[in-house]
């Protein structure tokens, strides 16, 4: 579709009005956002991941994540031939600055981006003694900073190691799936900045979301399915060695 100059001039004021709304927005005032109409997850298309660390940098820039802590990070796996049980995993600075050349090019080498799996049966929310963390009605695991005591139960309960205690606030912190963005119709910072489309935000309640077609036609896996957490971050092309 090509836009003529005249059309663009007509569109600009509308865009400006929408943008004001986006910047000031809360879910209530976000146009067209109803929690009950969404069920968020993510698709990670592993064969597309190039380990550039753009997602990690974007997450830190968007969410003010303190240095040395990560809401999302990238791991590099090295699986030597026939030894799937003992992969060598490294993630220097969470993959934020990319990865140095592999010591060994033999065997199998690949990247695995990780983040909160936004589990439906989330072990972390079940152990919170004060109701400070919860699964929102639209399927995002969130932390209420004002209620969190910093007791660290949830940090230990998460089987994926996705939580940490923010040293500044002394409260639990984790991936919010960019809740402040997805409620305004934007995608997450990591998905927006993934250059290869390896990460894609998925709205499982939206019948027009391409995730449905993808899930139908591809073999996907979640991390640690044996823990029955009902994770909503789906990995395509996941190797059996990934923990």
């Amino acid at each position, binding site marked *: 579709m090509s*836009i003529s100059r005249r059309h*663009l001039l007509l*569109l*600009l004021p509308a*865009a400006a009005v929408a*943008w004001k709304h*986006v*910047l000031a*927005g*809360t*879910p*209530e005032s*976000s146009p067209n956002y109803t929690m009950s109409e969404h069920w968020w997850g993510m698709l990670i298309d592993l064969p*597309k*991941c*190039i*380990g*550039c*660390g*753009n997602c990690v940098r*974007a997450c830190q*820039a*968007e*969410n003010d994540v303190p240095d040395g802590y990560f809401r999302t990070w990238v791991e*590099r*796996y090295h699986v030597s031939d026939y030894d799937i049980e003992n992969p060598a995993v490294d993630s220097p600075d969470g993959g934020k600055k*990319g*990865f140095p*050349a*592999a010591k*060994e*090019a033999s065997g199998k*080498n*690949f*990247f695995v981006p990780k983040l909160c799996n936004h589990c439906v049966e989330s072990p972390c929310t079940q152990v919170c003694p004060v*109701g*400070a*963390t*919860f*699964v*929102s*009605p639209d399927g995002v695991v*969130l932390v*209420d*900073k*004002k*209620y969190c005591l910093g007791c660290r139960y949830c940090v230990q309960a998460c089987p994926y190691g996705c939580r940490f205690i923010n040293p500044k606030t002394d409260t639990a912190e984790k991936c919010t799936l960019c*809740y*402040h*963005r997805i*409620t*305004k119709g*934007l*995608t997450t*910072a990591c998905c*927006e*900045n993934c*250059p*290869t*489309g390896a990460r894609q935000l998925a709205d499982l309640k939206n019948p027009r979301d391409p995730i449905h077609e993808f899930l139908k036609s591809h073999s996907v896996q979640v991390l640690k399915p044996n823990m029955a957490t009902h994770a909503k971050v789906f990995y395509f092309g996941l190797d059996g060695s990934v923990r």
Partner: protein
Amino acid sequence: MQAFKDSGHLFRLAAVFVAGILAFLVVRGFLVPKSFGQYGHYRGDAMAEIAARPVNFAGHETCETCHADVLEKKKDGKHAHVNCEACHGPLAKHADDPTSVQPPKLDTAVLCVKCHEANAAKPKGFPQVASADHSTGLPCDTCHQPHSPVISGETK
């Protein structure tokens, strides 16, 4: 009423309990936020507070409302699906005030290798170079146009 002859202390005890329960309910009413329990065992307002965080990455749709010319350059190239801020950085402030907030100039000698430096763990089909051999330190935009990086005449 012979059986309740000495029952005064029981009523006094009951009164203490009732007063205690009332005091508990009143204090609880003050301490528990209104929105607690609105959707579950948590504060319903927490979601609005989390969602009120300002956005740093404006999103490519916002960029494209003004920079249609760049979109045109990108659309047939290899970088067609690489979003603007993936390279240019978070620019919501620029989108909000395009004249006074200007995006920083990018150094392609540093930028491009973040994705394209050769690494054994990268997918085999992804274009990657050992930058030291490939360009001998020259910035990539000496030869490649970042918005559509394939040099015309090249096969890949």
